[in-house]
């Protein structure tokens, strides 16, 4: 089942690669954007659930029970569940679409890596996934200054600078920040806020670390998917630009 899914993804990736003149970098970018478009209903549902949750957590009723039962976690949890029921919100509403997308993300990654076969065993593996792709082999894995099958470094004055990993950290940060709630849940110092802050802090660095050490085809995928997500939030008017830059203290004369 999983193998069939990977085979499908590899063949779509190769189809795009062939269609656009055998440029694997652009094939990754186009395929990523396509996957984002196909999974848009899931993303939209996730965004809607996140927004509803954000509004709920900013509501006075929610804030009040946080204060009232701050020393009684069990009752607080019960009251929260009651509010969820009243408002018709599922606390997992924003997680479920993410879980469904998870295999798609892994599948896309595996398709990219398996297609970049640069050793005999990798090519043996690839040969089991493609029906009639011999005319596309070897895959042209050069993209701008990058060799997509290897971790990327751009030599500047004799020093290899990991440009893609830096871009992954920046775009991951922007993406995570712009969908984070302001005020309320983000600012009440509660567990929700802590979780959001932790995610904002760690997620970009985790992605950056992966981009630094894995094949740069993966880093390219991360950047493409981050930019696609940012664009998606901007188009649907849900981007929260206030969060991106650190707030400067205001001075009153």
């Amino acid at each position: 089942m999983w193998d069939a899914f990977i085979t499908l993804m590899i063949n779509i990736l190769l189809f795009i690669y062939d269609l656009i003149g055998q440029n694997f970098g652009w094939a990754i970018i186009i395929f990523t954007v396509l996957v984002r478009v196909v999974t848009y209903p899931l993303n939209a549902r996730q965004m809607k659930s996140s927004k509803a949750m954000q509004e709920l957590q900013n509501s006075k009723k929610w804030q009040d029970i946080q204060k009232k039962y701050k020393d009684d976690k069990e009752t607080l949890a019960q009251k929260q569940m009651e509010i969820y029921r009243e408002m018709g919100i599922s606390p997992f509403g924003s997680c479920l679409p993410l879980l469904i997308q998870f295999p798609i993300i892994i599948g896309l990654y595996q398709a990219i890596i398996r297609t970049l076969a640069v050793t005999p065993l990798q090519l043996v593996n690839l040969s089991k996934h493609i029906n009639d792709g011999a005319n596309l082999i070897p895959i042209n894995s050069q993209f701008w200054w990058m060799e997509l099958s290897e971790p990327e470094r751009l030599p500047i004055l004799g020093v290899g600078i990991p440009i893609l990993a830096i871009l992954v950290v920046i775009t991951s940060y922007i993406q995570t920040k712009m969908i984070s709630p302001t005020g309320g849940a983000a600012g009440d110092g509660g567990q929700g806020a802590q979780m959001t802050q932790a995610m904002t802090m760690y997620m970009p660095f985790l992605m950056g670390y992966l981009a630094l050490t894995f094949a740069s085809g993966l880093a390219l995928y991360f950047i493409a998917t981050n930019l696609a997500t940012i664009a998606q939030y901007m188009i649907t008017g849900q981007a929260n630009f206030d969060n991106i830059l650190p707030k400067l203290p205001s001075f009153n004369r």
Partner: protein
Amino acid sequence: MTKIKKILLITLLALLALALGACSGRRIVAAGWSGVTATEETVYFSYGPQAYAVSLNNGVQKWQYPAEPINGVDFYAPPILTPDGEQLILGSYKDEIHSVNPVSGLQQWVYTVPVDSRSSIRFIDSPLAKDEMIYAPASNNTLYALDLDGNLQWEYKTEDPLWASPVWSENCQCLYQVSMDRYLYALDPKDGTLLWKSEDLGGPIVSPPAISETGLIIVSTFNNEVIAIDENSQAIEWRFPTENWAWASPVIDGEQVYVSDISGDFYALELATGNILWQIQPGGGIFDSPLILDDLIYFCTDSSSLVVVDQEGVVQRVQPFEGKLYAGPISGGDKLLLAPSEFDFYLIAINPNGVQTWGYPPAD
């Protein structure tokens, strides 16, 4: 509830990291199958970060090179001895060709390819050592010609990676180099001048061609074809369609040539015409050449079987092994040597009846 979400988030991140990590390790790992060369007393083979010399008689290790693995340097191509027997040449998956003393396993010299910073250069197949020269095909589309001191004499570039050893032709006194760019190149061994180039052979070529005494060059291609080229006229003499990619080198035996494909089809063809004599499919893909020994044909499949066939195409034995048998069998004295991948033994010696006489590394 937030606690549950927090756990969920951490689990998701951990799963993501694990799933990605499980796919390929820290980066795309160089991964080939073991290459084996046997002399009367010693078997040399490379697998992963080290190359080994073991006694053909009992499988006891004589040396390993390098003594300790060097980070990121792997060896998979079969080691080859220079004609004078004084050097063992190892191509690495990391920009280097190593010369090692075959007796002591000590390094004699290392040639490092000037590296394009974008990618590692892999020597997928063995160099050819001929007269006073070493010809090493590399994944950066280049054939490097070195003298026996490791000094670069010339290089020749094709359009795509070189995964197959060059082959020496007595007839034209030249080198034949096949490339993934679908062409066969005839090169002057003195300076790498292109003597002639085949027409487009339709698909990538990853294994060395076979050359008959009559001057036919037999090439396996990924275009589901085996092609015979006359080296005098440089014209295609015949084409034989296979069921899938023809990966392994053809092997010529008298008036027959044996070819195979990665679907596991094994064919005997008439050398002069390419007409099929017989075909079998014992199961599993075939990625390396057969061995002809005492009128029997031995080949390995990736379903981990050693298949023994007679010259009429009658299967005599299908012997299962553990691991994956991508590499073909090698003859060593009265033994057959098999180099399984993904198995505890890197190398197995069996007698003609298929009974294992030793394995390396020895089981504890």
